[in-house]
């Protein structure tokens, strides 16, 4: 059922996800270059306007495609709708010119290839760190064996890439967390994590778009609205976008919250 993609990457494949969706898998690791390739393939398939395709989205190293199998049914053909659409997608990816799609690119180059054109501008996210805003800042500092201020310096020093959205509307998983700040999840998840909380879960970092239960370590909060279905682009963060954090004081947090 799972089929190799037929390019030069051994671990690329297409596999069914139930009878109305499939996954294109590029790899099984959290890795910036695999993610760039997933985003490029997601854009390629999204722009291809394949018949019956209702949704295309990238995860860390895979692309999920939802399709109406009625559009791929052909009584005269012995192939199943899945086999037919999987063939078409494999062919599209093989024949795509962009190196970020074909997988032959050297890993690690920034945002190249046709699939990543038209990304929004890098975003700066103001964060109020510690105390009432990030209850676990001390925990992260202790785990790293550094001062809480050093956690803030390191967290604001990095450039992050939005790898994917998932879990909840507007929840973005970011790549690029300083390895020093990797901190295991809390043993007991909180029942209420405030909206805008900037959090660390293992090697991952993200921002809670609204009040939710959650087990990640909370280091700060942003007043920015991460998700609003009334906006033309409902999610503030877009896959592929680059993000930096800026430290601010509680006064500015309150001011920005009111504006």
């Amino acid at each position, binding site marked *: *059922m*799972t089929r190799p993609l037929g390019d030069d990457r051994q671990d690329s494949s297409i*596999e*069914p*996800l*139930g*009878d*109305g*969706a499939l*996954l294109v*898998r590029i790899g*099984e*690791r*959290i890795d910036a270059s695999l993610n760039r390739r997933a985003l490029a393939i*997601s854009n390629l398939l999204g722009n291809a306007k394949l018949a019956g395709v*209702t*949704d*295309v*989205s*990238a*995860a*860390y*190293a*895979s*692309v*999920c495609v*939802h399709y109406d*199998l*009625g559009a791929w*049914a052909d009584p005269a053909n012995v192939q*199943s*709708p*899945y086999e037919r659409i999987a063939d078409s997608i494999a062919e599209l990816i093989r024949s795509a010119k962009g190196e970020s799609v074909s997988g032959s690119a050297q890993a690690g180059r920034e945002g190249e290839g046709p699939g990543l054109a038209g990304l929004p501008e890098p975003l700066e996210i103001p964060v109020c760190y510690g105390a009432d805003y990030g209850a676990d800042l001390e925990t992260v500092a202790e785990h790293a064996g550094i001062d809480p201020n050093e956690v803030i310096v390191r967290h604001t020093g990095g450039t992050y890439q939005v790898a*994917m*959205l*998932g*879990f*909840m*509307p*507007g*929840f*973005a*998983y970011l790549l690029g967390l300083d390895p020093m700040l990797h901190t295991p999840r809390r043993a007991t998840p909180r029942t209420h994590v405030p909206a805008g909380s900037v959090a660390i879960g293992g090697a991952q970092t993200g921002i809670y*778009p*609204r009040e939710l239960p959650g087990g990640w370590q909370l280091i700060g909060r942003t007043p920015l609205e991460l*998700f609003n*279905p009334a906006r033309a682009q*409902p*999610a503030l963060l877009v*896959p592929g976008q680059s993000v930096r954090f800026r430290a601010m004081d509680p006064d500015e947090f309150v001011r920005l919250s009111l504006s």
Partner: protein
Amino acid sequence: MSMRVLAPGLLTSFQDRGRRGQAANGVGTAGAMDPIALRIANALVGNPDDAAALEITLRGPRLQVQRDCVLALAGADLDARSGGEPLPNWRPLLVRGGSEIDTGIARAGARAYLAVRGGFDIVPVLASRSTDVNAHLGPLGGRVLAGGDELPIGTSGRDDFERMLGKLPPNSARRGAKGSIVAARWSVDPSPWFEPDPAVPVCVQRGRHFGQLDEHSQTALFDSEFRIGVQSNRVGYRLEGPALALRTPLELISEGVVPGTVQLPPGGQAIVLMAEAPTTGGYPRIAQVAEVDRSRLAQRKPGDRLRFVEISLAEAQSRYLERERALRALFQTIHEHLRH
């Protein structure tokens, strides 16, 4: 023109066929748990296939209609009443203005749909009128119905409506005690579309990580009886039964999941994702419920039994297409009944 909520019922929400094309924003499809019952309820009142209806869960709402309207109930077998008279399911009902409807409790099945001719006139959120209760997204700010809500009803073209009233004359139909309800003489036979018997197995395909279950668990998935746990909702059903285990633990990264995906968290009790499945998940995927059997599963409630039987992807797709053909034929028949 609207409908007033006198009592909201256990968990009543607006649902349509779901929200498409928003996975990249982390937004799942939501939509009806039993999309087939939803579509039949809409067809019975002459609505388009993608109109929104009320999804009723186990205990339905009490409603008051402001003016004459045409309704239909499909899905779980509700003992719905108006003015003491039973309201039969699976057929169009003409309800007079001012009447009170108690949609009652589900005698069999778990979810029913109340469709009203003209649909509910509510603003779509991200191109859908379905409610993602868990994500707080959709009509009514993403919440379930509450007492006192006014639910606006759309217009279906006045001529249409008048003609429909004409097609349901009092002398050819069952009449309510106070003359407030007129039910069509014909109805849809629910048996091909509604299966509340928990003894009937649910078809699943093997998931990507099925082969990584230990030998005992591979057998147990198909030979054991599971029970739907109390902590089950529109997001997912927690299964109680024999603990399932992988040969060796897997560290997975998040990938796409869909309604029907059966995940195995470390505790060994599987979770079947339902209509409000998140867009991504990081647990091993041991199975996938065939789309044709999603409605069957949606009609089970906490405490009900559940058995799985294996189906190939090709067979699942072919049965899905077959059911779509049968459904279109049914819609055609209903359409002709509404016209004649």
